[in-house]
């Protein structure tokens, strides 16, 4: 995993904090119960990304990825 430097952390805290504050700052009209969880779409994006990467890589290693000349 790549770890961010000080500027990276600062960027993440400022922008992430602003994004998390958006629903409170502006009147939002959630339509689903799960959206009431604080920052639902934030963690859904972050965790979803991790799941996609790890899951796809695991599937690739286990079954899908073959040497480049495999079809030849």
């Amino acid at each position, binding site marked *: 995993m790549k770890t961010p430097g000080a500027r990276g952390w600062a960027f993440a805290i400022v922008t992430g904090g602003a994004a998390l504050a*958006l629903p409170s700052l502006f009147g939002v009209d959630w339509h689903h119960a799960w959206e009431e969880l604080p920052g639902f*779409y934030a963690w859904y994006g972050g965790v979803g*990304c991790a799941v*996609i990467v790890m899951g796809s890589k695991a599937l690739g290693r286990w079954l899908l990825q073959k040497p480049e000349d495999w079809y030849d």
Partner: protein
Amino acid sequence: MTSPALILIAGALAVALAPARARRVLAVLSPLLALAYVASLPLGASVTHPLLGWTLEVVRVDALSRVFGLIFALVAVLGAVYAWGIADRREQVAAQLYAAGALGVTFAGDVITLYAFWELMALTAAVLVWVRDTAPARRAGLRYVLVHLTGGAVLLVGLVAHVATTGRIAFEHFEPSAAAWLILLGFCLNAAVPPLGAWLPDAYPKASVTGAVLMSALTTKSAVYALLRGFAGWEVLVAAGVFMALYGVVYAVLANDIRELLAYHIISQVGYMVAGCGLGTAMAVNGAVAHAVCHILYKSLLFMGAGVVITTTGRSKLTELGGFVGRQRLVFGLYMIGAFSISGFPLWNGFVSKSMVVAAAGETQRNVVFLLLMLASVGTFLHTGLKLPYFTWMGPDRGIRPTRAPAHMVAAMAMAAGLCTLLGVWPQGLYALLPNPTDYQPYTATHLAETIQLLLFTFFAFYLFIPKLGGEATVSMDTDVVYRKGAAPARRLVVDGVDAAFGWAETVTERLAAEVRAWLRNPGLTFVGRHELGGWDPDAARPPLQGPLSLTLLVFVVLALLALLAA
């Protein structure tokens, strides 16, 4: 009034006969004329022609066909501008005919016209793969045409059965029946619905740089149009669409070739349209149509960007690219507009179209569908918006010195990027063209908040996973393994095996015939045995006649002597 497809067919004829300099002008002028003509067609217009007792409706203009006709003609113009510097006559003719096929399908009011243009698309798209003139392209083109002609055969059987049972040739919504399921299969193959869609990531990365731009826009979206026309509200398409959306995302993680990655994301994005078609509500159908329009614009832009990279560096794999963003800033910037569009960033067109399908799923209380389509959005931004541009232009410096990007290619990218932005900031222009009236508002605080949170934290996760996301020098096994790996054993079984069996039968028959012929020549062999004669020898078989002949001669001589004595 006539079919807009005929303008492009006439254009193809003109391009085929014109000298090189005139060809490039004609190649742009022809789709431009078709676009103007489609825009001028009034809603409700219809053109019919009698054929063998049927009345073909070669042009049917309604809201659905008009919006697809407009975007197909528009992308044909963009594709022709992008290909301005291409001098290959075969490619220019094939591109015109391919676009003609898409327009013909779109405006077909009957299934006979539909089928004719459907097959025209299959054949001409294969030419766009072949003209790249590499061994992998030749093989991929052959697979493409075989797969699509097989799908076309299934479609034809379904259409014939439909006409035979209903007595109608009108292309309209199908009710469930065996024939309708076959037609659905044929449409789904062209829409690249897994497991029928492996032809797409097989062929598109190997097609010509300019041909792939058109292919990314026309085949799957004309199939989406056909599904919307014939199968809106078919529940099975909801599950198929959601599966497609995630399937493309998973394979895009593993892709190393930049156009293969984009190809898998076509499957993912078409998944939204197929799901919208399956949901079948007015908003879902509007969403599917709007997303098809936006998708054609941003996906052609993304393929144009990938094409410029291939043209200027000669490389197409993430493992071989990187470190030259400083030498290609404009192309990178234009590509990123396509990336922001497909990812659904506010201000770009994906934001105003994709959300309609997702909202339609939420509106109908399909929470699982809603959440899975949101997850696919995460994957889209991850790959098309982050992974591909990072590892293509940024990432480790491999000492690449790209040549200057051709001006016509950059111009076409700028036009597509402009349209992506225009529809993003002025969605009403798009919504006015949709088949159902809508008051959908994409720019709400709720939609903006959820999108910003989703995309920003996807970016954070991408940053952490950068070491894991680089390309790997592998290929991914897809469902085409059935015919790509299965071809050799199938040939051994069906061709070589049968050939060997026939060879053996032929040898046995010939030996038997030789024995019979030998026996018929000399049946006496049956009694004396071949070993005594050493095989067939006319001289050896002759001695039995010498005795009777000698005896006859002796008797004749004795009788002659007796006659002389008596005389």
